[in-house]
């Protein structure tokens, strides 16, 4: 059952996302082509220059918009899909399928996670049209490598993989859970669902920011300020990072439970 | 095919209409009776209602249920003849009553019928 739900959730999300990817790729290629073909056009004058500027601007705008869309769009699509499937007329169908509420949530989380990963990959790959044939590739990779090393030393020292795994989980699932939480809790206020969702989000923000800071800083006392070198600073910082990630994961877990509870007992689709 | 009025239970009306069909030979003696499901679908009537009508017919003996073979119309031609007569008597009774309400006596009503049967 989970597999089947997942298939349909993926289809439901995909039909908005894939056109978006196509636009992103298409416009990236268009920009690259444009630069190749008309790169020298900046020098020309008169009508040709005007056409060049106009065309160039349009393509550039489309490209930048599609980059922004591909970063945020996937979350927008996830939110809309969640609301449409479970909180609107379609809820009469989906929520009467012989499937538990957990299954509904897990299926959506997995489908969403897959698309988030895909979006990230597409985002990176959309730079491909610029990199191909570009002699500076090895230099870019070198710089990236150095940046990665610094980050590792500074923040990740021990527990590097643990932190990364937890970060990945938080990134892939946490934000989705937050979205589901806001939408589900929001519908508790009849006729003011959007306001409700907004209030739920504010509640999340207040709770997470106010306490996580305290929680994370609890690790600071252990910092012996006399020994001030990269290693100990790195250790302390990684400890703080780890703690705040864990704290967020706990918040997300609680929000998941609340979401499922509200869905099961307090839902009123109208 | 099947006409139902609002004022009587449908199973009674079904029983009556089936009796009519047996009396006028639409369903022949010894013939296999249609199934509950067929009548229900054709008449747009609840199968339990149809079942009740059939049970009434079985009780009166006009329809016989043979365990595995199903339901059959009786071959007793006397019974069918009597059924037809009884239904006819009802119509006659009805006629006489209505004529009485117009002021005709029974004899007058009978004579009247003989007179007009050519015209109608």
């Amino acid at each position, binding site marked *: 059952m989970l597999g089947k739900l997942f298939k349909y959730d993926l289809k439901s999300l995909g039909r908005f996302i894939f056109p978006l990817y196509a636009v992103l790729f298409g416009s990236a290629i268009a920009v690259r082509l444009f630069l190749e073909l008309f790169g020298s056009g900046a020098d020309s004058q008169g009508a040709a220059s005007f056409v060049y500027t106009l065309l160039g601007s349009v393509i550039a705008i489309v490209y930048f918009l599609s980059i922004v869309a591909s970063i945020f769009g996937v979350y927008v699509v996830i939110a809309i899909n969640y609301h449409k499937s479970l909180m609107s007329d379609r809820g009469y169908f989906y929520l009467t399928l012989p499937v538990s509420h957990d299954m509904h949530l897990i299926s959506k989380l997995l489908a969403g996670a897959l698309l988030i990963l895909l979006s990230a990959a597409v985002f990176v790959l959309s730079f491909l049209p610029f990199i191909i044939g570009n002699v500076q590739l090895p230099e870019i990779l070198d710089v990236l490598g150095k940046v990665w090393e610094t980050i590792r030393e500074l923040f990740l020292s021990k527990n590097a993989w643990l932190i990364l795994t937890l970060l990945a989980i938080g990134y892939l699932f946490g934000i989705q859970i937050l979205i589901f939480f806001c939408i589900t809790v929001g519908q508790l206020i009849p006729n003011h669902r959007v306001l409700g969702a907004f209030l739920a989000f504010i509640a999340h923000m207040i709770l997470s920011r106010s306490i996580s800071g305290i929680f994370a800083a609890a690790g600071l006392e252990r910092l012996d300020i006399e020994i001030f070198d990269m290693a100990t600073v790195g250790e302390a910082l990684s400890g703080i990072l780890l703690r705040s990630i864990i704290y967020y994961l706990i918040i997300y877990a609680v929000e998941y439970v609340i979401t499922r509870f509200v869905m099961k007992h307090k839902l009123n689709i109208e | 095919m099947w006409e139902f009025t609002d004022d009587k239970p449908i199973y009674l009306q079904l029983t009556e209409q089936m009796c009519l069909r047996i009396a006028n030979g639409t369903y022949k003696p010894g013939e296999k009776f249609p199934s509950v499901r067929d009548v229900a679908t054709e008449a747009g009537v*609840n199968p339990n209602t149809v079942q009740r009508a059939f049970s009434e017919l079985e009780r009166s003996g006009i329809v016989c249920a043979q365990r595995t073979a199903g339901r059959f119309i009786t071959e007793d031609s006397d019974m069918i003849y009597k059924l037809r007569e009884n239904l006819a008597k009802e119509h006659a009774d009805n006629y006489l009553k209505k004529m009485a309400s117009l002021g005709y006596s029974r004899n007058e009503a009978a004579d009247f019928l003989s007179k007009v049967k050519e015209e109608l």
Partner: protein
Amino acid sequence: MSIILEARDLTKYYGRDLAVDNLNLTLEKGQIIGLLGPNGSGKTTFIKMINGLLTPTSGMILINGEKPGVNSKKVISYLPERCALPDWMKVKELVKMYGDFFTDFSYDKARTMLSDLHLDENKPYKTLSKGNREKVQLILAMSRQAELYCLDEPIGGVDPAARDYILRTILQNYNEEAAVLISTHLIQDVESTLDRALFLKEGQIVLNDTVDNIREQRGKSVDALFREVFAC
């Protein structure tokens, strides 16, 4: 005579509004029951509770002895009043989806009914007229071999010829192991298909009797009685 559905002191409040008021009733398998009442009488609220879309404020609702959940959803075939299917799919994809989730679904039945009603499987659902969309929903619900069919206004938005077809289909599908609950206000059309009529007024059951009894004891049809009971 086994009981498929039982409501015990079932009550539902929406805030301060009482939608369903201490409902007590049992539905038996092998019966076709009409849930009759004016708009706002609590019919849809009751049906939503049967399907687990709403939780009761107090009291309980049991299907095969269990509260609404995954098990009850397996054996209930629900036709909602609204168009609830994902409308971006083609009709044949919807058929496949139903088959994917419900093990008691019959592809053959669905296809036969779709062609009987001249519905093209290859059309996207959202391009169909409202009446045709309702027909598709109904066909899918009736192609299942469920233990309880919950039909909320199955004939409301369809033309008279299709209505006859739909009622005939309900009768043809009839089996002693299933109960059919039809919620409607088109009483005249469905009266002869019903075993039993339930009148729901302001969240309470004011009549629960067989159609035969109603006609025998009151000398009038359920439709006529309804007009009396709910006269404005």
